[in-house]
């Protein structure tokens, strides 16, 4: 296998595999790079479903889907990007079905659709409670069918930009060891989210935002990095997601006084209010001393054993394995946990970044289809639609571009840096830094933010970065050295956390996931219908602003 390609896709989750398939179908020589086997990607953990206005369950159309998404985004989403997503969605979902996705069916044999938070129509297509799993496997089947080469268990570490153009990437080969260069005319980042910035997260260990950090290093702007969505029902303390389906079935949320506290926050919708509303209500209860060890309780007991066993089997198993609680007998301890990064690598409508040849798609990217708050079911759709578009655009561009080659100097330079890290034997193991970062991000940059706490977090991050300079990798071997790659991931996380500070401090308003009830409680459309754009210039972070692209929908009130 020659390590020269037309299109190289870094990341093999739903976005990456969909991109690779599109590029292949355009005739490009395409390869995937993934630090874990493709089907292990965290897309597989998505449970709820994927949104497209198929209109199977009720009248629906792309325009309505787009409006719900704009409103859900608290008017920070770019409306042209949202229109593209909602217009392309249906055909993209049909294609997944043609490839063999095992969607649940309605009575007439069509793809079943269910209602999801903040959607005006039941438009979430699903496969029982394993939608992401079904999609990741069907995409991998299509990758196998095409024989698309995958650099499996390859850890991408540095993008190589020469004369303003991205020409490839430098990786650490996990299985065999060694620094490897892969050259490609175009590169697509599809490396997923960065939930591991937080101690409680629904994200996998692999969600360390590597692609965003790599893009930052080569001068690309990271957009809306302050926008991290918190999911209200994540299992305490590990953050494993407890599906919204529980509340759909009628579960209660209780505080330490056994009160259904949502009566004070969303008296109409109660437990069915939108994610951000519930997360904020929970955090308020916890902050005001009505939590239980930092949790609230999700009570299913009144549903009865039979219904729990039958309808919420998966939830029961997760709760028993990860919290030792059988929800038939006891309420489940839950808390808000970091779930989805709306922010990411700034791209245009075809996934192109500001660097020639460099694209991004999926959770790593910010096109921005989700603005300040993502609707459930829209993230998977984005991976497919924008994955496909970036794959097509990158292969089209590759046709026009001359051959690319990562210089030996760039590879050697990376090799020297990795060797220096491996050779260090005196210093601190990474886990202390990693855990402190995740804990303090939760405390100072969590559901609620205020200026002083964010600035304090900035100082903490800089201290952690200093400690990182002396981090020690125990494993000195070359075979499956993930002690090394986990240390490299930690550096990425530190870089990203640092980007979130100026963005969060700069947005002196409350919008979507960025809630500042104590200093700036209101949304300020006059000044902040703008995206934060953080770049790294000569080692310093710089905050700029870019206007929201509005096509049809002027800002309105976001009430449900």
């Amino acid at each position, binding site marked *: 296998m020659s390590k020269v390609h037309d299109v190289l896709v870094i990341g093999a989750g739903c976005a990456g595999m969909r991109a690779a398939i599109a590029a292949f179908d355009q005739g490009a020589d395409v390869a995937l790079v993934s630090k874990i086997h493709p089907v292990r990607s965290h897309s597989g953990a998505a449970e709820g479903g994927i949104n497209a206005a198929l209109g199977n369950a009720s009248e629906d159309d792309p325009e309505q889907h787009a409006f719900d998404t704009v409103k859900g985004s608290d008017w920070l989403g770019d409306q042209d990007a949202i229109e593209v997503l909602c217009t392309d969605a249906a055909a993209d979902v*049909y294609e997944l079905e043609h490839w063999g996705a095992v969607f649940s069916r309605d009575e007439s044999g069509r793809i079943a659709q269910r209602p999801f938070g903040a959607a005006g129509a039941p438009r979430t297509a699903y496969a029982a409670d394993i939608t992401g799993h079904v999609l990741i496997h069907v995409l991998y089947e299509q990758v196998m069918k095409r024989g698309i080469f995958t650099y499996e268990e390859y850890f991408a570490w540095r993008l190589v930009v020469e004369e303003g153009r991205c020409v490839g990437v430098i990786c650490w080969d996990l299985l065999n060891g060694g620094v490897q260069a892969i050259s490609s005319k175009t590169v697509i980042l599809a490396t997923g989210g960065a939930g591991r910035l937080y101690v409680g997260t629904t994200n996998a260990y692999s969600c360390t935002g590597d692609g965003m950090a790599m893009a930052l290093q080569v001068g690309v702007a990271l957009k809306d990095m302050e926008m991290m969505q918190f999911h209200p029902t994540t299992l305490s303390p590990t953050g494993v997601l407890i599906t919204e389906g529980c509340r759909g079935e009628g579960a209660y949320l209780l505080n330490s006084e056994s009160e259904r506290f949502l009566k004070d926050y969303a008296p109409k919708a109660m437990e069915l209010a939108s994610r951000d509303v519930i997360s904020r209500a929970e955090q308020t209860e916890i902050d005001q001393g009505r939590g239980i060890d930092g949790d609230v309780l999700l009570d299913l007991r009144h549903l009865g054993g039979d219904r729990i066993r039958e309808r919420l089997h998966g939830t029961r198993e997760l709760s028993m394995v990860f919290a*030792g609680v059988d929800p038939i007998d006891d309420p489940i301890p839950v808390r808000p946990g970091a779930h989805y990064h709306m922010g990411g690598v700034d791209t245009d409508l075809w996934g192109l970044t500001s660097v020639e040849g460099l694209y991004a798609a999926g959770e790593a990217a910010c096109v921005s289809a989700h603005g300040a708050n993502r609707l459930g079911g829209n993230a998977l759709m984005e991976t497919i639609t924008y994955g496909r578009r970036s794959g097509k655009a990158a292969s089209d561009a590759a046709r026009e571009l001359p051959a690319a080659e990562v210089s030996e100097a760039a590879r050697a330079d990376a090799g020297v840096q990795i060797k220096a890290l491996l050779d260090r034997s005196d210093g601190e193991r990474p886990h202390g830094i990693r855990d402190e970062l995740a*804990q303090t991000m939760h405390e100072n940059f969590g559901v609620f933010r205020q200026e002083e706490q964010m600035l304090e977090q900035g100082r903490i991050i800089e201290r952690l970065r200093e400690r990182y300079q002396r981090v020690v990798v125990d*494993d000195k071997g070359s075979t499956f050295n993930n002690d090394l790659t986990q240390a490299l991931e930690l550096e990425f996380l530190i870089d990203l956390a640092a980007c979130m500070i100026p963005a969060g401090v700069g947005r002196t308003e409350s919008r979507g996931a960025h809630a500042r009830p104590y200093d700036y409680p209101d949304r300020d459309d006059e000044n902040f219908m703008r995206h934060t754009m953080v770049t790294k210039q000569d080692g310093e972070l710089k905050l700029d602003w870019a206007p929201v692209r509005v096509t049809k929908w002027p800002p309105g009130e976001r009430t449900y």
Partner: protein
Amino acid sequence: MRGKGAELQVKLRIQRFDPAVGDRRLVPYDVEVPEWATLLDVLDIVKDTVDGSLSFRKSCRMMICGSCGMRMDGRAILACRERMKPIVNAGHVPTISPMGNMPIIKDLVVDMGPFWQKIRQMKPWLDPGLAESPEKENLHSQAAMEPIQKEALCVMCGCCVSECNSMESDPEFLGPAALAKGFRLVGDPRDAKGIERLEGYSGEHGIWDCTRCYFCNERCPKGVDPRDAIAKLGAEAIGQGIDRDPGARHANWFVHSAKTTGWLRETELVPKTQGLVETIKQTKFALSLARRGKVPTPFPPHVAKDVNESRSLYDIVKKQGRSGAAGIVQGEKALRKLEH
């Protein structure tokens, strides 16, 4: 800072393997972990605080990515699915080792290359045999999609392959995970290549080489029940008259049984009506016969404890008028009904 909660003192032994020196040894560890810890959390704490060179795979930590297959006390498990507290409370010191039937790369990391090679051998993508796709989705009822629901749960963790009896003696045996994937396609009403697939799977190293040890069913952490998928493939193959393979021809009893009872062969019901331990005992006996005589496991024809039970089961299924794999799926459902 891994969260709150009381602590737990965990002792365990981990089989270490260093490919640089080829040295394999069992190393004891003793760590303090939060009381909610799973085996995966414990391994993480060992790696963080005791020896960073310990290698194992992980990602989702929620039983869906299939990364963390390994063995605990000789049984294949997902590390993120095993709570440590009950084990510690029982005073047990577990031994952790890599999965079986796959070459070890380092410590608990095995080479899954051959595993994926077999998956690829199944041509595991839908082939609708259409020149053009329909404009919208294919229309199929939920009932028509039902037969493949269990197979669609597979996370490709390898736990079944690790334990497969047949794989041990014949490394080229397609194996439970690949065959379950095979049924995932054969059973899909949208696939047009069923017969070709069945012919492919009926050859040497295929469905008839399964010794019916049922370990795959027992160890699969996702309830895929690969052995049942193989039975469904067998029923479909025979239904299609595919019995050219010597293995299939030797399986006269099987054909006979399939002919007389449709899909319903008591042999398939043994583990469900008599419990697992009994099955394994019988399987061991059957296996020794099978090894000597090179015939498929000859389960005694009428072992179901309660003949009436299997009769009424048969009646239920017959009423539904289904045969082949769909019949087995129906049968499973009916069985669940009887059990409750």
